[in-house]
C-alpha cells in the first residue's frame, strides 16, 4: 500500500487547472503552494500496480510540466 509524495511543476499559468485535474483522482491529496507555481501531491494507493497506473495517468496530464518524487513509504 504505497504512499508517495511529489513536487509538481505546472505549465506556466496552469496551476489552477492542474489542481482541478488532480482533484479528479481519489488517490491524490493536493497541497498547493501559496506563493510559487508549485504543487505538492501525496498519493495513497492500494498496491504497487495501482501506484504505477496512477503514476502513468499523472504523467499524461496536459497541464503538468514536470513531477519529481520526494518520498515513498510502503505501509503494510
Amino acid at each position: 500500500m504505497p504512499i508517495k509524495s511529489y513536487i509538481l511543476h505546472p505549465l506556466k499559468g496552469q496551476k489552477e487547472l492542474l489542481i482541478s485535474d488532480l482533484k479528479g483522482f481519489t488517490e491524490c491529496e493536493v497541497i498547493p503552494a501559496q506563493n510559487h507555481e508549485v504543487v505538492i501531491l501525496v498519493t495513497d494507493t492500494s498496491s504497487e500496480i495501482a501506484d504505477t497506473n496512477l503514476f502513468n495517468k499523472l504523467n499524461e496530464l496536459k497541464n503538468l510540466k514536470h513531477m519529481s518524487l520526494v518520498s515513498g513509504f510502503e505501509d503494510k
Partner: protein
Amino acid sequence: MAQKKIDRRSFVKKMAAAAAMTAAATMFPGIVFASEQEQGIPSGNLDWKKGPCRFCGVGCGILVGVDNGKAVAVKGDPNSSVNKGLLCVKGYHQTMCIQAKDRLEYALVKKNGKYVKTPLSEALDLVASKMKSTIEAHGKDSVAMYTSGQSTIPEGYVASKLMKGAIGTNNLDCNARLCMASAVAGFLTTFGADEPMGCYEDIDYADYFITWGNNMAEMHPVLFSRMLEQKNNRGAKIIDFATRTTRSSMASNKSILFEPQTDLAVANAICYEIINNGWMNKKFVDEHTNFLKGKTNIGYGLEDNFKFKDKATKISFEDFKVFLEDYTPEKVAKYSKVSVKDIKYLAAIYGDPNKKVVSYWCMGMNQHTRGTWMNNLVYNIHLLTGKISEPGNGPFSLTGQPSACGTAREVGTFTHKLPKGVVMNEKHRKLAAKIWKVPYENIPSKPTYHATEMFRAVDRGDIKFIWTQVTNPLVSLPKTSRYRPAMEKESCFVVVSDVFPTPTSDVADVILPAKWHIEKGGLYGNSERRTQYWQTMVEGPGETEADAWMTIEVAKRMGYGDLFPYTKEGHVEEIYNEYRQFHEGKKHGMAPLEVLEKESGAIWPFVDGKSTQWRFNAAHDPACDNGKDFHFYGKPDGKAVIWQRPFEPAPEVPDGEYPFWLNTGRVIEHWHTGSMTRRIPVLHKAMPQAYVEFHPEDAKEMGIRNGENVKVVSRRGSCVLPASINERGLPTRGQVFVPFFDENMMINDVTIDAFCPISKEPDYKKCAVKIEKV
C-alpha cells in the same frame, strides 16, 4: 486496532507531505503551503527528542519522533537558529537507514576466509590482543587508527587518548584530511587559530554572497535556502564562481566559470584590482596585518614519503604590489577563461566599502593541490578590504561533515594534532599529558602519517594493524585502485567499525557492529563553531555498540584501564567534561553540558554564559585585549597574515592522450560514499546510480547519447558509467563530472592521489582522463 491502522496511515501521509514541503522549501525559499505547513507533523503520542542532523557540516537541529522505542519521524527543530525548522531531503529521511536489512548487528571475525558471527566481547579481545602483539613485534608505529569527521567528540577524544597518550604513536588520522585539512592550514597560516571567525547570522546582514567552487544548493541546502530568502526579501546577491554550472549557479544572480586551478590567479587579480583602484582599507591593513611569502614550486606529493616544510619570509607591501603585477585582469583572463569584465566585477564587489560581503567555500578550494594557498588568497581579499569578523562581512569556510570541526579539528584526530595545539609543541604535549595523566614522554613530538600516506604505508607493509571507525576509505580515498589491493594484503590486520557493510568492511579481518547516531549519545561541532549535544534516543539492535565504548574496551584489554575510568552509562558526559579542560579560557571555552542539554547548541568561545559569534572583533569577542577594534590573537603579535601565493598549475592537466578534466563531487540525495543514503529507499530511488556528466557539444562530437555507458579512463584506473547530458549539472567543455557516492561505480579508482604539500589534502577536482565508448 482498525482505528490505529487508520491513524498510522494518516500519519504516514502527513509525513510524506511534510517531506515534499521540506524539499520544496530547499528549492524555493520562503515557499508557503498555508495551514499545512504551519501545522507541520502531528505530534500524536510521539516523544520528540532533540539532536543535530547526522549528515553535513551545516549542523541543522532535528527533532526525532520516538514511538515505542522506534524512531518513526524526523522534523527540523524550529528552535534551532541554524535551520529554523527547515531540513533538506537527506535530513528528513535520515533515520530510515537504521532498519536496513543488512545492518551490522553482531561482530564478524574472518576465519578461513569466511566471516563468522562472534560475541562482541570476544571480537574486542581479538582486536586488543592483535594490536598489542603487533606493537610488541613491530613497534608502536606499526599500528594505526583512521577515524572520521562523523565521529562524535567523545569518540575522537578516546581515539586520540589511546593512540597518542596511552600507546604513544601519532598514527591517528581521519577522513577530514580529505575534506578540511586545507581549511585548517589556511586558518592557521593566516590567523594562527582554526575555524571561521563569523557565524551563520552573517547571512542576515550580507549584501553579497560569493561562493568559490561551492555548490551550496546541493551540499549545504538549508544554508543556501537562507541565502535565497535574503536574495528574495531584501535584494542580497549571490555570485557563483565555479568550474561547472550547477543548481547553485542557476539560482544565483550571476554565474562565472573558470578554468580548473586558475582560481589562484583570479584571487590574485582581485587583490591587484583592489590595490590598484585604491579600494584597500589602509588603516585596517596597517594596524592588523603582516605580509609574508612562502616557498614556491612546492610539489604535489605524488611520491611515497613526500616531505615538505614551508618557510615564511617577511615582505613589504611594496613587494606584494610588485608580485601582483603578474596578475592584472588582462593577463589572468588569458588562461583563467574569466573575462576581464568579470574579474573587475568581482573585485568591485569586494572593493565597495558600502557593501558587505561573505565568501563561502568548501571542497572546491580545499580539495586542491594548492588548497592552503587558495584559503590564504581569499583571506587576503577580506584582509585587504577589512571585510572580516563583523556581521555580514567575512570569509567562511564550510565543512562537509557534521563534526569535522568539533571532532577532527577541535579534539584533533589528525596525526599532528592534540586536543589543544599540536604534537610538535612541548607546552601542548605537557598539557595533554597532564589531563590524560600519562608521562609527558609518551606523546611523540613528530607527526607520522597523514591519510594518503597512512594507506601508502599499509601498501608498503609498514603499517601492520589498522582500525577504521565511521568511515569508508576504500570508496572515499583518491586512487583506490592502489589502496584497495593494499588493504587486502595479508601484511595488515584490518579492523572496521561500521553500521553497514561497505567495500572497506569487505576487506576487514574483524568487523565491529557500531551504533548509529541516535542509538548513542554524543556531541558534534558544526561549521560555525557550534557544539551540539544529544542523548541516546533509541536502542541499537543486536550487539551494536558505540565506537567510543569499543575503543575504551580495547584500551582496557590492552592494560590502559586506569586511563579510561569512564562508566558505560555516563562515558559521553564524563569524556566531554574531561575534554573541556583543554579549551578553558576566553579563546576557546566550551559550553557546559547543562547549557547544551537545553539549547540547540552553543558557539565557542563560550564566555560568561554567552556564545561568541564574531571572533577577533573587540565589540563581540571578550578574548580581544589589545585595546584595538580587532585582535587576531592567534598570532603572537596579534596580526593576521597577507600571504604572497602565486598561481601554479595542477599536477596533471588534459593533453592529447587524456583530453578531459575529471571533476568529482556529491549530489543532494546522497551522503558521501552512500553507505547510509543508498539504504534509504526514497533517496536511492531518486538517485539510484552515479553517472558521468558531459557538456552537450563534447558528447555530440564523440557521438555519446544520454544514458549510454562510457568508460572514464585515467593513468590509474577506469570506471564505466552512464552518460548524463543536460541533466543535473553542466560541465564546461573539456570537463566531465562524476559523483562519488556509488560503490558500484568507483570513480576514485580513476582519481589522482596528489595533495597540497602544506595541508596534505588530496585534490579530487582535477586530473586528466579520456573517454572510451563501451
